[in-house]
């Protein structure tokens, strides 16, 4: 190896790099202030877009302030009109950055999406729905079907912006998440809650038609429930005793919820009294009104293996809970546990896509539901489990021996 030649190569390369490093540094020193000014003006332009009457903005130092986690920057309008808040949230994709203008009295002056990675593009125009609305109006803005995750994140961010503006303006706002408020409302739940719409962990049924009910949380330790009605978080125990404050306007709704939950308490059915019930049925419970909740084991990939029968999962069933109405139609069904191949079942079974095919159907109609290609074993097991549940229902209802 010719050392002198190699050395010359290195020296020339380093010399050229050094020369241009200096040139670039000089260029940068001249242009950097201009570029910075332009970027600030461009950023201000976005803020002006959400607060058109603003005279100017000054950045607020957020150090030491407790604000919603989505807030990344806040600017105070110089004449006291309010605040423009920059937030980063996550819809279907990550990195959705919004700027929301909020007036001094908590009304949204404008909302715009600066950058996003969403798929449908609805976030580019959704902001127009919030102008002129206060917190209640913002929370009432409807989501867009097909862009639920995007618009839900957007709406939630606008709520955060109003809360942030309130705090920055010297007021106070409840920044707790829904789950945190539920935990605080029923501390006896020890922080372990599940949200249910139809069937709870014990299979108790509740279906609610009142649209003011935003959700019901059940403490998994049996301590009780928290029902969200409008802005009220109301806790009550398993016996229906109300444990927290409830406003007069929501009292009747809460009483109805408690009554429905109580009326749908389940009692076990002794399977030994009936013959002909498939051995894969592990338990049957029934309400006074005739609703059945049936736990079934499905023989999917975990048990049967692949189509050639050579390989299979770890030998576990798909545990399914099926809820049938007194008239013999599917109210709901849910996977409790499985050892199926995650990639195949996630979209179909875990996210409830497949089970939605059975809702409202009777035994004959359920038998006609197709299995899903690519998850044949799993969905076939699911469908068979529902049919076994129907068989058990017929036997028990018919009192067959």
């Amino acid at each position, binding site marked *: 190896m010719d050392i002198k030649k190699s050395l010359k190569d290195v020296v*020339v*390369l380093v010399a*050229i790099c050094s020369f241009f490093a200096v040139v670039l540094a000089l*260029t940068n020193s*001249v*242009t950097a202030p201009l*570029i910075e000014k332009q970027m600030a003006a461009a950023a201000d332009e976005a803020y002006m877009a959400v607060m058109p009457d603003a005279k100017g903005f000054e950045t607020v130092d957020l150090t030491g302030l407790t604000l919603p986690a989505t807030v990344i920057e806040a600017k105070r309008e110089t004449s006291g009109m309010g605040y423009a808040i920059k937030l980063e949230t996550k819809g279907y994709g990550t990195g959705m950055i919004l700027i929301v203008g909020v007036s001094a009295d908590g009304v949204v002056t404008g909302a715009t999406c600066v950058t996003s990675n969403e798929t449908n593009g609805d976030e580019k125009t959704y902001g127009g729905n919030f102008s002129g609305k206060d917190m209640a109006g913002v929370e009432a803005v409807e989501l867009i079907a097909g862009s639920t995750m995007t618009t839900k994140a957007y709406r939630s961010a606008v709520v955060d912006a109003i809360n942030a503006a309130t705090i920055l303006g010297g007021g106070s706002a409840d920044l707790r998440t829904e789950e945190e408020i539920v935990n605080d409302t029923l501390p006896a739940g020890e922080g372990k809650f599940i949200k249910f719409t139809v069937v709870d962990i014990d299979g108790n049924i509740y279906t609610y038609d009142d649209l003011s009910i935003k959700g019901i949380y059940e403490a998994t330790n049996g301590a009780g429930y928290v029902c969200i009605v409008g802005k009220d978080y109301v806790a009550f125990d398993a016996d229906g005793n109300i444990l927290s404050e409830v406003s007069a306007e929501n009292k009747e709704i809460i009483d109805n919820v408690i009554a429905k939950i109580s009326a749908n308490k389940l009692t076990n059915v002794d399977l030994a009294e009936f013959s002909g019930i498939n051995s894969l049925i592990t338990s049957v419970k029934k309400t006074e009104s005739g609703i059945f909740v049936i736990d079934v084991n499905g023989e999917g990939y975990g048990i049967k293996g692949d189509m050639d029968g050579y390989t299979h999962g770890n030998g576990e069933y798909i545990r399914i809970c099926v809820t049938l109405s007194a008239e013999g139609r599917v109210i709901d069904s849910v996977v409790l546990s499985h050892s199926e191949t995650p990639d195949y079942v996630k979209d179909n079974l875990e996210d409830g896509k497949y089970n939605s095919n059975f809702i409202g159907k009777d035994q004959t109609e359920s038998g006609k539901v197709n299995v899903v290609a690519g998850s044949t074993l799993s969905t076939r097991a699911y469908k068979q489990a529902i049919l076994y549940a129907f068989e058990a229902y017929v036997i028990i209802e018919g009192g067959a021996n």
Partner: protein
Amino acid sequence: MNKNSKLWIVLKGIIAENPVLVLILGTCPALAVSTSIVSAISMGIAATLVLVCSNVFISLLRKIIPDTVRIPCYIVVIASFVTIIQTLLQAYLPAIYTLLGTWLALIVVNCIILGRAEMYARKNNPLDSALDGLGMGIGFLVALLGMAIIREILGTGVINLTALGFESITIPVLSEYNIPILTSAPGGFLVYGILIAIVNKIGPKAGSEKRKNFSCEGCPSASICGRVSCSENAELVSASENNTLVEKEEA
């Protein structure tokens, strides 16, 4: 025209050896940026500046830069000039900077620039290299502009001048009856292909003798090959190097 004249050095880059339509170089930015007249002109000017500056600098250092590290050196030079132009645009013409977007930085990997540095600047004096860069740059701009005129006017019927701070120009009839596919990739390829065909047909090379160059000088493997790859063509290589090989091109 005297092919040794300075004027010919410039002109050949525009017509006879147009980088986009004859040499088929720089097709990526050509297709991407030629959807709008303003962006085509902007890209053309930016590329021309980089070409001229890099050619001059490389020509000045042609006797100093060793063969073994010439490509990295060229890349450093080209990338530096691109960065300078990018920064200047961002500072003084932000609308154009935004319009060109990623394609501005990608001038670094534009084959035309590295190609001319390798094929011309390292073998010629700075003045000739600058003229070559100017000719090639103008040729690139002309090709892009030609494509952009067809694609924007026939494709949208509107000449978008908002990046320059002016109102867009709406062309009667075409604004209502246009060919939208021209603004997309398939349309771009179509326009590109048609322009190449036209240039091939009516270009100055048609019917003329063409010296076919098998010389090792133009071969990228020259320094490592030892003529092994060309052993089958040894006669052709020797004839070419002796300037005795001439092939008549079909009219």
